[in-house]
């Protein structure tokens, strides 16, 4: 293993060990050493979060650990992002994500955002308690390919249907892939409201989004 590879391994371990300060310190060190920022993000930060995600799937880590791993990753990302050479970055599909109006539980949404971030998407986070019309307006404004909507509550799930209703009403439904998720949501509910996809776990989000984008390309071709 080269010195640089060892460094990335150290960075990944810092994220996976939930060490925010060490992650930030190593990110600064990477900049000082002149390491490629994008490579450092991918092989250090993203690798660390991937490991934390695997530990989450294996029930070694739970929500608190994953949240701190995410904090660590974002601490490093804040330092490295300004140094990324744009030309080295491939085109990223844009995802507009948010928690539907009336619901402020955003941990699940934040985990999906994290997964999509590290999975190669450009994520536009609308936050929580987002009105249906705002999802549509922002998706149009940024030229998003995907609209991702979450809710934890049975009280607010109908707002997801409202987003699709607005898209249909404006005659732009086919321009966006709509994916939904959250504790009360099921595939049958997604089918009922006409969403394109449903994910039962945050870790499924990247696979689902990529699969739907591929399907869309095939249809277009």
């Amino acid at each position: 293993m080269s010195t640089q590879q060892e460094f990335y391994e150290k960075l990944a371990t810092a994220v996976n060990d939930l060490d925010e300060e060490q992650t930030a310190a190593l990110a600064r060190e990477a900049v000082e050493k002149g390491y490629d920022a994008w490579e450092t993000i991918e092989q250090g930060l993203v690798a660390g979060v991937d490991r934390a995600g695997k530990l989450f799937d294996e029930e070694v880590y739970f929500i608190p650990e994953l949240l701190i791993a995410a904090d660590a990753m974002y601490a490093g990302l804040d330092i490295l992002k300004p140094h990324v050479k744009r030309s080295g970055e491939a085109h990223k599909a844009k995802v507009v994500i948010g928690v539907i109006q009336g619901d402020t539980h955003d941990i699940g949404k934040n985990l999906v955002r994290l997964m999509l971030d590290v999975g190669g998407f450009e994520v536009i986070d609308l936050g929580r308690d987002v009105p249906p019309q705002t999802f549509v307006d922002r998706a149009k404004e940024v030229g998003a390919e995907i609209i991702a909507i979450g809710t934890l509550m049975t009280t607010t799930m109908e707002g997801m249907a409202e987003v699709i209703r607005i898209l249909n009403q404006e005659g732009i439904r086919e321009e966006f892939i709509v994916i939904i998720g959250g504790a009360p949501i099921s595939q049958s509910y997604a089918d009922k409201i006409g969403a394109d996809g449903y994910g039962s776990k945050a870790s499924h989000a990247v696979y689902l989004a990529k699969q739907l984008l591929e399907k869309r390309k095939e249809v277009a071709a």
Partner: protein
Amino acid sequence: MSTATRPVPKKDQLSSLERVVLALQYKKPDRVPVAPLVCGASRRVTGISYARWSQDAEAATASLVAAQDLIGFDGFLTLVDLSVEAEDFGQKLIFPENGTAYPDFDDQYLKSADDYDKIKRVDPTKTRRMKTVIDIVHGLAKARGQTVPVMGFVYGPLGVLSQIRGHAELFKDLIRHPARVLEAVQTINLTLIDYAVAQVRAGAHAIVIDPLYSSATILKKETWNRFEGPFVGAIADAVREAGAAVIVHNCGDGVYFDKVIENINPVGISHAYPAYGSKSWTEHAENWGKKVVTIGGVDPAQVGHVLSQEGVRELSREHIETFKVADGGFILSTGCEFPPHGNLLSAKTMVEAGRLYGQYE
């Protein structure tokens, strides 16, 4: 299943109270009790706003009674929202006209980990929101307490704290500042014990304790056991001491039944998913059906928003069949609050399914 093959519903032989009390003791009543947990949805029966339903005890009581008259469910649950206790500790809330009240997460009462000592014990009988719930319990007990079980509700101390600090921040504090969190949990719990006992004194037959984070989708079992297990256990002890039964409610996925039972020893657990370690309801019924009464089975979102009435009837029948192994210790329920905007007819259909398919010999 066509209507032609459906059995004929028999007339109820027992009151709801008698039915539920027997079921909670694994004694077969006339039929499977049905509790679709119609709470906020009841406001639509009387046509009032959610904001009023949440804050006006008299109006909420009238709505719940009217909903019971309409639907015929076998128990009242005073789950108003999960922010009741939080407001009385100082958290600012938002009351939408047509939705559940929730904390203003942009204005948390505990803005940093240094703020935990702002949490002080309060007297629930002198507060705004907890007192409202106590009054609802009193109103229901007076109106229907002779025939319909009245179940009070207390959100666990860690849940209450998450409403005051913010969920994500609290979860991170469990790792970064465990001692401060524990101290706040302890203080909150003193109030919750008083609150639970006040509801019993107001006429509740049982208190439903919600340890929401005793779920594998959120916390490690040991973490929950450290930060909430013994505290909710103390609430349970106080409730039993005051003369009421203890029930647990947790609509999270993968509830740690072993630790919940060890700490709380409830007569029943209301839950929306099979217990941690059980892959299906059938497996759950086999593993836990005879150890603690299951209150649940049917998916609330499916019942309220997706299924036809025939679908609701069939889903209910399937769960009644699955829980026959429990020898009478089963209450058909949504295991989570009935969707406030869901089809109320579906709640009535669940009760009808109990009469059709849940008759005991």
